[in-house]
């Protein structure tokens, strides 16, 4: 369908952009790459009175890596993450997950900030933010704040972002080189949203036992989630067949997936266990 009518502004500074969003009583929307918002407009699920284009805002398209971790500017595209060689060691889990995002043409425009703000329950970036305890830096009319991923995603397409707030940066904590990780998702067609996906990592201690396990799932609830029962099944154990089987069973038991035209709840539950098993095998290999 053709898009509903709206006004359009393309401010040159963050403060102008915030002022524009604030001036429309919650009825204005920020647009970055537009790869989620444009379909929402086409379906008329969204019909804001004003679109505030973020493309001229300076400094939001940088990937900064230092001892604190990886800082992704909100306007960093999937393509930029694919092309950044440093991320192979600075955040290999991010790199592995982003390889599954949508298609070639969409990866040339879609942004990390846009994906986080859109908060699709099956999207990879919100899943990585949850799994890795990311901080989401935002700026609004009352100033700047950093929201923890765990407090950010409130439900399907629903976040803690105020109507006048703009995401400026996603902060992923530093990635130790000895960390083990795996990312697995399953979709019927390449580039589709996953029916279920799993991102996990753990830090092996000197004896080879796993600690600090983080296990996140996407596509099996109304938002990305951490599975603490699975983390408990991993922590303190060697990642052998018995541990993997226990973790997979714990994952299937822990999720409460929805049923839709793509898959039944029982299928998603079983799939989550299988994906935890595969991701753990990759992590331990």
């Amino acid at each position, binding site marked *: *369908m*053709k*898009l*509903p*009518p*709206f*006004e*359009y502004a*393309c401010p040159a500074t963050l403060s102008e952009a915030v002022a524009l969003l604030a001036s429309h009583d919650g009825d204005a929307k920020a*647009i970055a790459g*537009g*790869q989620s918002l*444009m*379909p929402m*407009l*086409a*379906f008329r699920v969204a019909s804001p009175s004003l*679109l505030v*284009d973020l*493309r001229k805002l300076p400094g939001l398209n940088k990937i900064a890596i230092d001892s604190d971790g990886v800082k992704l500017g909100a306007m960093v595209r999937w*393509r930029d993450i694919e092309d950044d060689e440093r991320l192979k060691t600075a955040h290999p889990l991010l790199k592995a997950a982003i390889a599954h995002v*949508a*298609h*070639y*043409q*969409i990866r*040339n*425009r879609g942004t990390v900030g846009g994906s986080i703000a859109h908060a699709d329950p099956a999207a990879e970036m919100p899943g990585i933010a949850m799994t890795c305890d990311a901080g989401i830096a935002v700026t609004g009319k009352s100033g700047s704040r950093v929201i923890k991923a765990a407090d950010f995603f409130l439900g399907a397409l629903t976040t803690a972002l105020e109507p006048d707030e703009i995401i400026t940066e996603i902060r992923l904590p530093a990635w130790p080189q000895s960390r083990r990780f795996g990312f697995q998702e399953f979709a019927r*067609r*390449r*580039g589709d949203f996953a029916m279920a996906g799993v991102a996990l990592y753990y830090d092996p201690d000197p004896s080879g036992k796993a600690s600090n396990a983080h296990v996140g799932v996407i596509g099996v609830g109304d938002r990305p989630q951490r599975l603490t029962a699975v983390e408990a099944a991993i922590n303190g154990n060697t990642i052998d067949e018995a541990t993997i089987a226990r973790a997979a069973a714990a994952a299937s038991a822990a999720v409460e997936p929805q049923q839709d035209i793509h898959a039944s709840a029982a299928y998603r539950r079983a799939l989550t266990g299988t994906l935890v098993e595969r991701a753990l095998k990759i992590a331990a290999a």
Partner: protein
Amino acid sequence: MPVQFEVNGKSVSVEVEPRLTLADCLRQNLRLTGTHLGCEHGVCGACTVLVNGDAVRSCLMLAVQAEGAKVVTVEGLSNDADLTPLQKSFRKHHALQCGFCTPGFITTAHALLTEEPDCDADRVRDVLSGNICRCTGYISIVEAVLDARSAYKKTGGGP
């Protein structure tokens, strides 16, 4: 509102409503009807054009967002004198039947081969997964793109 950008090497200025997509602007305002609109919500890939060298879906971009950009449509990837190597390869391998999706495949494949003339069959399939074709079954398209690689290595895809 007024918007100015470059299309196939020529500077254009058009007066558009903000809600007009780049795809509709190309077709309706600029009469570049080689860009085809299939789904109009970013699923089928038929409307793919190049914006500053990147393959993007022109139905998922507003015309006003193209301000100052260099846009290349399928018309900009052909010439009247002869078929380009990519066009020849599509013809040789029967990589099209009805032709509706072809502009999207040509623009996408051109972007890929320009940047990665050494890409393998897996990479071609991965990239073309963003374009839907209901006639060919894809195998002939993948073969055509793979066969055009040598031309891109030699001449960058020019004739």
